């Protein structure tokens, strides 16, 4: 395998595949709006929502799918969702204002995360459900409701530190939520503020890919709700958060070959695969591999709605071994989910123009790889920040490019900083790019688009457009101009 290109081709569903193929449209957009440029595809998010809804239906569960707004600040995506039956999970005052302005009514919004007083007031004033972290936040909310004579606020109690009997499932410590060990004190606070808050359920959000950990937490929530009921409260819902994942790559084999090659490279059995011999968390300790691969599992057999389905099928050991979905249903509880990244799967891409293609003066050191400089900063295409390894797609300036074979390149950004690497690894492209070509980074809508963007060095942050299919072609408008009634073709 030495020397052969290690491709990591992105998984492209029909809508994104068609957009990447619309070469003329993409180039004219860059000419008009500059590089880099983010594109979102609002219709895809409605399709993704439907996939989650079908899992709900299969288990006969009711409840809400809340889009985690923080994953992308796009108005177009939010407004498209407002036209469906989805909810939105907001984590700041600005996001709450954005959601209300996009057409979400209060009963479709949930406010979570760390909150400042203004955020909490507007949430309470508007009547959205508040996910509370602990007793202090309940006290704060209770005082706010009384002082400003507001109607009682619905709250979901965010819990953490779930425990199991038998096999102990270790979980990373979280700075959010109330440990279940302190549930009694939390419920006492709920009762104390009975005039100001109404506890409608329990919630958790664990940062883990492990289904077992989430199943333990869901089981813990069922037990917590039983404790609520025994106190005469009337809870109705369990919110299992998100973290259902996205499968970024098209081919499992490519991902397996790449990670094996990375192991070999770290152990010195093949040339380095990344700038400066970076090992993505792996290291060589006297011939044995140590550390852990700090990469997003970019090819996943089970992700998104299928992950939720798998979670719901897990048996609850402390409740007779029945599947969690069945228990939720039997207890008449609604299921709330908050997928961010998974709801944005295939919802967008980022374009960057090639400015310079340079051969290394000292070609021996890195195997003659080309240095490719893009009109973009690393924080405009934050795939690397999230450990997602995925090849960009070359969108040639003028039809098909030169007919030569694959090349190894390093992708650099436009900042005057050694660290401004679009990706640390050596990227293999099917042919040598030339200045003026575009590189399309697929599937950046979830966290990799504007989550990290800055205006450092007075370089522009990427602009954003919304695009939709109109017959065989693609139409677009600025993200801010998109509404679900935006005319298509000659319709209006």
């Amino acid at each position: 395998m030495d020397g052969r290109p290690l491709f990591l081709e992105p998984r492209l569903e029909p809508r994104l595949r068609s957009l990447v193929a619309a070469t003329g449209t993409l180039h004219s957009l860059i000419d008009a709006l500059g590089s880099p440029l983010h594109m979102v595809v609002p219709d895809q998010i409605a399709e993704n929502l439907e996939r989650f809804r079908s899992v709900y239906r299969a288990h006969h569960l009711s409840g809400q799918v809340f889009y985690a707004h923080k994953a992308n600040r796009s108005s177009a995506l939010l407004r498209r969702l407002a036209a469906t039956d989805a909810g939105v999970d907001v984590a700041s005052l600005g996001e709450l204002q954005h959601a209300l302005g996009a057409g979400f009514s209060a009963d479709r919004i949930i406010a979570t995360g760390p909150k400042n007083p203004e955020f909490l007031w507007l949430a309470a004033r508007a009547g959205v459900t508040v996910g509370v972290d602990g007793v202090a936040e309940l006290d704060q909310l209770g005082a706010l409701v009384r002082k400003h004579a507001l109607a009682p606020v619905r709250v979901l109690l965010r819990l953490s530190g779930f425990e199991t009997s038998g096999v102990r499932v270790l979980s990373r410590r979280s700075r959010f939520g109330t440990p279940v060990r302190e549930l009694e004190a939390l419920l006492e606070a709920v009762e104390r503020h009975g005039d100001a808050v109404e506890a409608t359920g329990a919630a958790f959000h664990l940062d883990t890919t492990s289904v077992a950990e989430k199943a333990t937490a869901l089981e813990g929530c069922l037990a917590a709700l039983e404790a609520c009921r025994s106190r005469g409260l009337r809870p109705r819902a369990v919110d299992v958060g998100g973290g259902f994942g996205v499968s970024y790559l098209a081919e499992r084999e490519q991902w397996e070959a790449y990670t094996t090659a990375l192991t070999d490279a770290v152990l010195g059995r093949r040339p380095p695969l990344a700038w400066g011999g970076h090992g993505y968390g792996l290291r060589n300790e006297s011939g044995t591999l140590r550390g852990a691969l700090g990469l997003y599992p970019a090819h996943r057999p089970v992700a998104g709605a299928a992950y939720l389905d798998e979670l719901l099928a897990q048996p609850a050991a402390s409740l007779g071994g029945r599947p969690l979905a069945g228990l939720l249903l039997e207890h008449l509880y609604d299921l709330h989910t908050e997928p961010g990244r998974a709801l944005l799967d295939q919802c967008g891409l980022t374009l960057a123009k090639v400015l310079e293609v340079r051969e290394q003066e000292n070609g021996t050191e890195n195997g003659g790889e080309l240095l490719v400089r893009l009109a973009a900063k690393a924080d405009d295409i934050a795939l690397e920040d999230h450990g997602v390894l995925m090849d960009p797609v070359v969108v040639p300036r003028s039809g098909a490019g030169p007919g030569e074979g694959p090349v190894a390149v390093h992708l650099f950004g436009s900042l005057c900083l050694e660290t401004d690497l679009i990706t640390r690894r050596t990227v293999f492209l099917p042919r040598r790019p030339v200045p003026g070509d575009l590189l399309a980074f697929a599937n950046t809508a979830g966290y990799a688009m504007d989550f990290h963007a800055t205006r450092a060095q007075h370089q522009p942050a990427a602009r954003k457009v919304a695009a939709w299919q109109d017959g065989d072609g693609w139409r677009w408008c600025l993200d801010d101009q998109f509404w679900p009634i935006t005319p298509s073709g000659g319709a209006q």
Partner: protein
Amino acid sequence: MRYDSITEAIGNTPLVRLDPAVHGLRNIDLFAKLEMLNPWGSVKDRAAWSMAGPLLSEAVEHGSQVVELSSGNTAKALAVVAGMHGLGFKSVTNRMRVPEIKDLLLLLGAEIEELPGQSECLDPTATDDPLTLFHRTLSASGSAYLHTDQYFNPRNTEAHLTGTGPEIVKDLDGRVPDWFVACVGTAGSSTGVARALREEDPSVRVVGLVAAKSDFIPGIRTIDEVQEVGLFDPETYDTMESVSADEAIEGMLTLNRRCGILGGPTGGAAYFGAVRHLRALDEELNERRTAVFIVCDRVESYLSYVRQRRPDLLGRPARKNTLADLTEAEVSGAPSVTVADARRWIDSDRPLVVDLRSPFAYAALHIDGSVNIVDELFAELLRGGLPFSRSRPVLLACPVGEQSARYAALLTRMGHAEVRSLTGGIIAWRDAGAPLVRD
């Protein structure tokens, strides 16, 4: 054969020649080394005893807990060894995917900790992975733990260098086999045996087997995972080949059904890998040769593993009075009653209300006066016949009215004329504002 301690029964396992009619090799005698016949059921008994044995008296003095990163057989053997000496045992793992093994370990008094899964949102500032933290905790705590460290402990390899390897040579009347085939987990048995054999005759060829990368075979690591093992040295093996889970199960079935050897999937993988590797070589031969592979453990612990991957192997004949017998037409024609009608019916005819949900959900909220027969139990009851009189009307309720419709259809078929399913279930009942009680 009389022993003073069960630990004396470790080792000296049989080497059994397999019937050529089964494996089809004409010139190669294929032998299975039955490590499954060690007292606790696996090849790991040797390593566990070799690693823990010399440290036990000190551990007893300090009351240390024995700890190991193990998902199965090593943990099992260590749990027994620890228990025999009045010590606790803790297994830390993220790979224990076979429920029977978990249960057996708990039965043996082990404590099990599962490592957290990978972070969904990558944290570039995270200090260390869970395994590194585990090692740090161990070394920081002084003598509170007896860590056997099977992936790095040379006494793991040594158990096979002085035991398993020489036993094979002895049972082959002093000859070294031409091929030795072993699955690679901790690499202890393959490394130890290979070294012992090579010391006698360097011409032995060693085949290491790993799991295909996307597959899970209990006890075997993938080609990447073996790199994390301190005892693993690629020089040990003349060739490394991979085996899929399906192939492991195929091999296991042949051992179980044709050879009378009740080995587990790891042994099955070794058998499959051995025959696959040797087949072409066998055709070129004109003289007799020998090959040995290891059967690591027993099949009994892997029934759920098999059920998940090959449910067809555990198929059973259909039973009477089951939901599976119903046609779609029968289900859609099942007698049902709306919430409003059900409430009137309850008031007028007092039907027996059977709530099919789990006892936990029933205890939380239910229709006043109903009885709770959880659906699995109800299914069992029906196999024996109707559990109540035909003269007593029955209202069946489940969460949304789907399950109850199926049972109503089945009871109708069994001859009950007055059975109804609650349309929309308990959820419709609640949504209609009908009373639910906790008593």
